[in-house]
């Protein structure tokens, strides 16, 4: 049997499972469409803001530094993937591989420490930082 054919014989239960899940989800989406009630009151089409009349636009900007952690995530995720490859082959690569992985991990731990020292991993608000500083001084 060719590689492709053996793949298909191996994989079809997964494909069937995923198709069934999609089918179930479509049923759950379609059900209320036919069964559900329909109402239209004065405030039906307004955004929910705890029962008061909505104020202002929802199109506000979020401070850009908040995206920093997403960058950190991408980079540490990439690093984790290298370690996935090491973890599965740790016996085969032996001590040479271990030392390499150790250097790899240490470099990234150092990077993490550096970011920590700079305060990049500090999500307190300005006010919280200021208060904490004064509390520590007392």
């Amino acid at each position, binding site marked *: 049997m060719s590689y492709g054919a053996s793949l298909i014989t191996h994989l079809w*239960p997964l494909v069937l499972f995923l198709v069934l*899940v999609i089918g179930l989800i479509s049923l759950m*989406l379609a059900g209320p469409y036919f069964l559900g009630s329909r109402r239209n009151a004065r405030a039906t*089409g307004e955004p929910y803001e705890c029962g008061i009349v909505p104020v202002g636009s929802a199109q506000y900007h979020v401070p850009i530094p908040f995206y920093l952690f997403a960058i950190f995530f991408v980079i540490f995720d990439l690093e984790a993937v290298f370690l996935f490859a090491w973890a599965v082959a740790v016996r085969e690569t032996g001590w040479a591989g271990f030392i390499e992985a150790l250097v790899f991990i240490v470099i990234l731990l150092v990077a993490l420490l550096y970011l920590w020292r700079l305060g990049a991993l500090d999500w307190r608000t300005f006010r919280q930082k200021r208060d904490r500083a004064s509390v520590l001084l007392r």
Partner: protein
Amino acid sequence: MSSITANILNVVGILVFVVASAAMLTWVERRMLGIWQERYGPNRVGPFGILQVAADMIKLLMKEDWVPPFADRFVFVVAPTIAMFVVVAAYAVIPMAPGIGVIDLNIGLLFFLAMTSLSAYSVMFGAYASDNKYALLGGLRAAAQMLSYEVFLGLSLMGVVMLAGTFNLREIVLAQQEQWFVIPQFLAMLLFFIAGIAESHRTPFDLPEAEHELTAGFHTEYSGMKFGMFFIGEYVSVLLTASMMVVLFFGGWLGPVLPPLVWFLLKTSILVLLMILIRGALPRPRYDQLMAFGWKVMLPLAMINLVVTGVLVLV
């Protein structure tokens, strides 16, 4: 031919099991929380309120299929679909007992990680499509939290992979015949447990849905069955985390006397109950504490655990 029938039975059975037990969990959780908080919980519909699930289901089906006129219609429907699809799909690789399990992938663990990494989309798309202030804030928070905890979710599991030498979950279970991995990998177990709770954003990591600051966070504008899908997704993810822990750390179906499937279900339910107890017992941390905990404590611990395990495996 018989293997095809067995496979179809497996596929259908596991799908029904996952969805039905997620639905049942909504009742179990309310009931257990009631007991632990010295009140009744749902006890009206059927014996011990067990038919509450059916009542809820009918209620959700009869609710209006409402999409806010100001929302991004297409993305609004896609978000709960992703929420439910990824967690149920991830369950496909869980080996429940010998011969029971949808598929035996060589990269089973990576498949699980891939699916969990996609689950962040559900909250982000839900928040974006809702076009609501609370939803956007909640969505950003949820994304930040899920991504931060996802980093060491994967890393914490690599200790187990080192000991077993494979990503195949069935082989990982079989590698635990002499000793469950919870003993050499206790730290990793704790890390994974915490990351799993954070990924399914349940208390104490439910800041994205913190009701007294963000109403309901990313699903503020969701109602009816679409809300129900987020809800079921959360419970499937509880079940998934518990099952994954059983498979990776607590020897899967292995155990004396009782049949394998019973052992698996027993261990899983104990862990699920533990997660419910945690919800009943712990308060919610402040947002910056949650993020700092993930990056400054859990991530270095996961890396150190990896190095120590590497030494232990090689010596």
